[in-house]
């Protein structure tokens, strides 16, 4: 049996190999696919967001362009005189309001001095003076102008679209007020995920619409640093002021800036696009976790599966290695037992050969001794020796030598016949004789162990057809087992033979230690033995069983632990061979 250490390290090695071989592709695949999937998904999500924001950018831009066009068309289509007619202007306002509900608040004509000389709308702004208003100062400089959102005189957020017209050498403005709320809702609509929101800021970073969320300070500072005009020239991330650790810009161009901002609750994605030819910025913000929710969820699931899988692999590897090594251990053990028993069998064979050799050799000296004693007896018959006083004693003594010589011969003959290689030639055999032969061979041993031997052999037992050596082997084995079972404490060995129907039945009963049920089940198994290592091959009973079965008979056993055992041999008389 290999040392425990060998098996432990074998198990460990197997487990490790299985784990490594299973983990490596798993990790590689999970890693690679995970990486590619994540990267490409994130890209896709960003692309999608970009497209969305771009769409809204276009929407908002066209809203503004459209409203501007209407005012332009209005200014171009009608004369100064028509437009300064309040009723006329009111009509036009109504048309506009009907066409776009809630967008146009009022219309007005403002002269070059900043006075609103014509007004249509619900507020009382006729003759309002905008000469000091910043929007007027800018508007009068350009052909058309959109203001930022401001509170103005009316103290509600709005912005103004103005178109400049010439009349002779003076200029006048046709202006319209756009309602903030309608405009705001355009932008507010942009909702993606749970935290996505959009809003507009002007070039100074001032909000033009209401964002749905509170803005972190680093975002507001970023927004205030944006200059789309600068973008067009520079085209790289450094153009967005200095990029701090908190603000990472991933892409920028003349049309978009996007990146990630660190905030208290995690990272925030921002996408910025220009509006109104770069005067405004459409900003879109979304929590990174929210935007990439799918990916993150997928990653968590994959990780969970991966971990679970790894655990399962480890467990299975351990389990299987354990089982396999257990098998190997058992096989090794069996192999060792078998080796031992083969060695034992070999030893036995050698001993048998040795015994046979010795028996042969002894025959010669014994023969000579016996003949010499006989010769002396012959000589004793001569007259002169008959007179000697010890002649009777000589005679008796010489006879004794002869008797003992015959005994030697019988012993060696028995030994030689037993040690002879199995001669499978069948003879007609009287089983009783075989039994008595074996008993006489075992006589010394049973006497030594205080075992009483009793036989009840049916004198009219018919002959059976079998190989003599095989029969000797069977009874030798059974009788020896009985003697061993009784041990040195003494007991009774009974052998009975009789006829039962068409079978010869022989019982070999001992008063030995008996056989337990668990041993009983395996008693005819080859290599099974209850004797200590080195004392029995475990081959005996299985060979006997085979021999008897081959003759068409049967070998059975009854036993009670502590009381004794009886083996029953039955052999068909008329050769019912299998």
């Amino acid at each position: 049996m290999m040392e425990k250490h060998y098996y432990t390290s074998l198990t460990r090695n197997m487990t490790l190999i299985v784990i490594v071989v299973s983990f490596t592709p798993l990790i590689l695949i999970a890693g690679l696919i995970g990486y590619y999937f994540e990267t490409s998904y994130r890209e896709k999500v960003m692309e999608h967001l970009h497209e969305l924001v771009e769409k809204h950018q276009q929407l908002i831009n066209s809203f503004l362009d459209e409203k501007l066009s209407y005012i332009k068309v209005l200014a171009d289509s009608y004369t100064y005189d028509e437009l300064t007619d309040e009723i006329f202007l009111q009509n036009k306002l109504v048309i506009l309001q009907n066409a776009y509900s809630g967008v146009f608040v009022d219309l007005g004509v403002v002269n070059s001095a900043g006075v609103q000389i014509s007004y249509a709308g619900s507020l009382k702004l006729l003759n309002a003076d905008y000469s000091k208003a910043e929007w007027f100062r800018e508007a009068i400089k350009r052909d058309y102008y959109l203001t930022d959102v401001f509170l103005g005189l009316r103290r509600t957020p709005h912005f103004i679209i103005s178109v400049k017209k010439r009349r002779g050498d003076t200029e006048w403005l046709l202006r319209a007020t756009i309602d903030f709320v309608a405009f705001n809702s355009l932008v507010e609509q942009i909702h993606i995920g749970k935290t996505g929101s959009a809003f507009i800021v002007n070039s100074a970073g001032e909000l033009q619409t209401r964002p749905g969320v509170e803005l972190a300070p680093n975002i507001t500072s970023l927004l205030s640093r944006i200059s789309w005009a600068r973008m067009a020239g520079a085209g790289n991330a450094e153009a967005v002021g200095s990029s701090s650790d908190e603000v990472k810009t991933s892409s920028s161009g003349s049309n978009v800036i996007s990146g990630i901002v660190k905030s208290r609750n995690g990272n925030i994605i921002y996408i910025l696009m220009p509006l109104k030819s770069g005067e405004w910025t459409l900003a879109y913000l979304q929590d990174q976790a929210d935007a990439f929710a799918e990916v993150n969820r997928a990653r968590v699931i994959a990780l969970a599966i991966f971990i679970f899988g790894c655990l399962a692999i480890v467990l299975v590897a351990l389990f299987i290695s354990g089982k396999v090594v257990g098998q190997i251990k058992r096989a090794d053990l069996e192999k060792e037992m078998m080796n031992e028993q083969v060695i034992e069998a070999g030893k036995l064979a050698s001993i048998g050969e040795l015994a046979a050799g010795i028996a042969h050799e002894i025959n010669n000296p014994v023969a000579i001794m016996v003949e010499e004693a006989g010769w002396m007896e012959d000589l004793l018959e001569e007259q002169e020796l008959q007179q000697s006083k010890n002649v009777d004693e000589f005679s008796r003594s010489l006879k004794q030598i002869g008797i003992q010589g015959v005994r030697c011969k019988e012993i060696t003959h028995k030994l030689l016949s037993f040690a002879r290689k199995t001669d499978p030639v069948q003879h007609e055999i009287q089983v009783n004789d075989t039994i008595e032969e074996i008993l006489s061979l075992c006589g010394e041993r049973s006497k030594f162990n205080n075992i009483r031997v009793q036989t009840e052999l049916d004198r009219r037992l018919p002959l059976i057809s079998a190989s003599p050596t095989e029969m000797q082997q069977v009874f030798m084995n059974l009788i020896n087992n009985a003697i061993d079972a009784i041990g040195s404490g003494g007991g009774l060995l009974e052998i009975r033979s009789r006829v039962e129907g068409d079978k010869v039945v022989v019982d070999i009963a001992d008063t030995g230690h008996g056989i337990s049920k668990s041993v009983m089940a395996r008693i005819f198994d080859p290599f099974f033995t209850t004797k200590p290592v080195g004392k029995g091959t475990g081959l005996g009973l299985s060979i006997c069983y085979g021999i008897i079965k081959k003759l068409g008979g049967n070998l059975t056993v009854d036993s009670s632990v502590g009381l004794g055992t009886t083996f029953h041999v039955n052999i068909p008389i008329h050769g019912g061979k299998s």
Partner: protein
Amino acid sequence: MSSGDPIDSEQGESKGMKLLLVDDEESYVSVLAKRLSKRNYRVKTALSGTEAIHILRKESFDLAVLDFKMEGMDGIEVLKIFKVMAPEMPVILLTGHGSETAAREGMEHGAFDYLVKPCDLSELVKRIREACAKGL
């Protein structure tokens, strides 16, 4: 019993019969020869098959006792030569235990009978008488 029958009863029948004993064990063959001589046989001994054949060229015998498992010459070969040289001479084989198959083979080659060593002298004498009775 190996003491054999009392000598007197045999003397008449066996008077002067010539026996050739062949066995490589000198101690054995010499005591056997002595005992047979006492029983009025004329005995010559040979310690090998070769020696036996040598002797057989010069003399004839009434019977030969041949130890079958001698070293040197194969028992069968010696037997065959005996049968060629002296076809009328019966041969009794002495074999060791376990060589019965060889002994039976010997019988097929013309041996009269066989005995297993160590053998009882009275048995041997009985066989000798049987063989010679047949011959007459």
